[in-house]
């Protein structure tokens, strides 16, 4: 539904032939006057959370918004129902990558083949919510709250970082997002930001030698109430705390090349956060790139799926290339609010379904296929059933990689063992 958005914005910016930021900063020299008196220097208030700590293992949660079609990403090529249900959009067996006796990968996932072949990618099949919920918004809420027994709106990432005594807001970061996702919501402060380089206070510059701008802003926001007040103070403190991240190179390492678009930008920022080593345990990234393919999912020649799959694989491959050996502590999990129907509709698309595939990539992952993929049914309403609760997959990652307690992160839930995480 949004396939034109990035293009549109790029075109719009390109058409003006200018960088917004450079324009915003131009002319600031006019403000350059040092004011000699410092009347209120002693009232400087730093919203303080203490120092950041050394980072341990990092979980990157990549949410594919809009409900991705798992059957197109990892095709069960021996199931005749798959081909019968999708005369217009099924992917021919011959085109599939990394084929085994049951599955093969979408050809546009090619950039991830080296990692797949190295056993660093696991696909967990037929995962999802314990009961179907075909509403994007309600499903996302349920998925990210992950505590069906409670009416409090607290996301599972927020519970995860709330388990230790470390309370720095950089412990969990939503990157590439101005609006935090539900998984981050809750009593623990977190940071959501669109980009690394935007984390600066306008006017707090080299000409403000008496630090009047920063001092006065700290005073104004020191006692401001409610969510807004917290937001102001967190923002002012994040400017300082993000320093090591801002100091990392804006050029990816190891000749990594990210695809254009929000996902590539967000993952590149995520790599800088890991490199900056500011005590971040979890980085949440969204891919809101058009997965809701009711119409025009398409074929291998044309349509939305080839575009989305290519962007996803290219961005993830670039991310791990960029990280290099730092990737040894980074595990990526992909998730989507639900899967799509088995049978295609009249618009070369797929309506809302149920079960879906989750990918695990990187550190600690034992590559291959996991979960149980039942035989598909070719009927109008048939879904991929769910045979593995998505929380089992997340629980394995957070317990084995982040030493968290599954019971605290997913209250009232007893996870099954997937076996896709070694350590």
């Amino acid at each position: 539904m949004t396939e034109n958005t990035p293009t549109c914005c790029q075109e719009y910016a390109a058409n003006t032939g200018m960088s917004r930021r450079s324009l915003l900063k131009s002319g600031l020299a006019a403000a350059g006057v040092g004011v000699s008196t410092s009347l209120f220097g002693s009232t400087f208030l730093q919203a303080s959370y203490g120092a950041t700590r050394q980072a341990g293992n990092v979980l990157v949660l990549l949410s594919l918004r809009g409900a991705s079609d798992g059957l197109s990403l990892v095709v069960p090529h021996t199931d005749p129902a798959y081909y019968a249900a999708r005369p217009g959009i099924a992917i021919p067996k011959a085109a599939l990558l990394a084929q085994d006796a049951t599955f093969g990968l979408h050809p546009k996932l090619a950039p991830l083949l080296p990692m797949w072949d190295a056993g660093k990618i696991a696909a967990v099949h037929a995962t999802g919510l314990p009961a179907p919920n075909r509403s994007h918004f309600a499903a996302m809420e349920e998925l990210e709250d992950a505590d069906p027994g409670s009416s409090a709106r607290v996301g599972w990432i927020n519970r995860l970082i709330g388990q230790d005594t470390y309370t720095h807001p950089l412990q969990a970061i939503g990157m590439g997002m101005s609006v935090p996702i539900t998984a981050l919501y809750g009593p623990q402060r977190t940071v959501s930001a669109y980009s690394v380089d935007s984390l600066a206070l306008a006017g707090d510059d080299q000409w403000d030698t008496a630090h009047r701008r920063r001092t006065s802003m700290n005073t104004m926001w020191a006692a401001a109430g409610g969510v807004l007040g917290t937001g102001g103070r967190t923002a002012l403190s994040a400017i300082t705390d993000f320093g090591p991240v801002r100091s990392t190179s804006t050029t990816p390492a190891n000749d990594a090349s990210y695809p254009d678009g929000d996902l590539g930008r967000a993952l590149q920022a995520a790599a800088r956060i890991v490199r900056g080593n500011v005590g971040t345990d979890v980085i949440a990234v969204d891919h809101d790139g058009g997965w809701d393919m009711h119409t025009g999912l398409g074929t291998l020649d044309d349509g939305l799926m080839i575009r989305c799959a290519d962007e996803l694989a290219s961005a993830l491959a670039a991310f791990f290339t960029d990280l290099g050996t730092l990737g040894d502590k980074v595990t990526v999990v992909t998730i989507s609010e639900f899967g799509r129907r088995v049978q295609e509709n009249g618009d070369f698309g797929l309506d809302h379904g149920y079960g879906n595939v989750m990918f695990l990539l990187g550190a600690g992952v034992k590559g291959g296929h996991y979960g149980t993929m039942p035989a598909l049914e070719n009927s109008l309403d048939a879904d991929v059933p769910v045979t593995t609760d998505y929380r089992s997959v997340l629980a394995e990652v957070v317990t084995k990689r982040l030493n968290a307690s599954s019971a605290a992160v997913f209250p009232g839930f007893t996870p099954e063992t997937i076996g896709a995480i070694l350590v």
Partner: protein
Amino acid sequence: MTVLGTSPRTAAATTTTPVTTYPATKVLDLRSLHIINRFTGGWTRGLGAQVTAIGGIDKWFARQLTPSLISDTYYTSSGAWWPSNLADSLTTIERANADIEPLWEVSAHYQTWSMVRRIGSQRQVLETMAAFWEHHFHVPTDGSESAGYRQDYGRTIRKLALGRFDTLLNAVSTHPAMGAYLGNATSSKYSPNENQGRELLELHTVGTAAGYTENDVKASARILTGWSVDLWDTWVPSYRTDWHWTGPVKVLGFTHPNTSTDGRAVTKAYLDYLARHPATARRIARKLAVHFVSDNPSNALVQHLATVYLANNTAIAPVLKALIATTEFRYAGGRKVRTPEEDIIATYRALGVGIARPTQDNAAANAMLWQCDQIGLTPFGWTRPDGRPDTADAWTSVSRMLGSFDVHYSMAGRWWPTVGATYKSPAAWLPQTSLRFDRFVDHLSRSILGRPASALILKVASQATGFGAAAIITKDHELIKWQMPRLLSVFLDSPQHLAR
């Protein structure tokens, strides 16, 4: 969860007022300011004078609810600044196909116009409500299939924004823009596309709490089959009787034999039913309360507004009148956080920036789109059908806060945008040739925030500039010469300006 633990009003009341004030710059009482902050693009001294001239906020509000009494020339004159905003949809699509004005430009032009209207229109309450419904019946401005029809969609909503919800629901649900966006334009009895049928229930009317089933969703989609748009070729909308699914349908308590291949009557009966469903009444009441009262309105308030809505046959204006009469509304001043577009609109108004017909892409009337983007979201740029979030926890991220501070600073300094924008000169902010710093700060607070300066604002202003309360300010003073960007930012970056 409180949005502002202490409202700005309470905070101001518990601190001492500045030593000297500048009462010659008139402000209204706090209730009037509260209504203005919620139902307009934001405070201006001109609006304050207008309210006073008409005889008070209640008379002003009543008049605003009858927009035909108020001049609408700004709507048409500003609409004509861009080629597509007042144009017929098929003409717009033709021009896009010919690459004269591509669809992504068409979308951008609508986005900027929607903000310009809210900054400059005399029909402030109508514009506020038009934006409210456009967010409710969200169709993104993203240059995709719906873009050619998006202008007409917005104009249609504005026309009906203070009318009856059932009329509005019928107009938007059968509009080509929504059909193209949610797949109903190509949904047929042979292969129904469930998307709009589901979102109609979940987002536009009853909500998931109504307890409809997947069978209800399917029936909802079947009822809507037939409203086609030829997305492959001519883009002409038409009702396709050969596509309409016939046979008995049942959605919640709605049943219909649906025997005719012309399903327009069953569509209307169904939408009229949904508009009057108690779950719709509560949902619309709650959405209005969240937007105009607080992030967590009481159930009693929601039920009260729902009752008014149903008692008035889904008419919208009586609900708004009831809303502003409640105690809960009255004591909710400053409890809503401005969204990015609301921030930009209020900032142009507060600074009194004149906006001219754009002659180039970086003119203010176009550039305000990037200003919104820098804060976090362009108007109707939310990519999912649920519309942008409207609560404080969504709009207080690090990016949002620092983005707002950056945009404010650039405008306070008159650095960007520069083309097509007329700013007040630094000296023009002085209300008289010479006055104390604290009186100047009070004048600025009244001008920009619509309220006297608090002791905290004065302290922050002193810290930001280095001048004490008794400093005498003239047009040749170094404050006016150099430091006005930092001083004006104090007000724009305050919790009072970021909230409404």
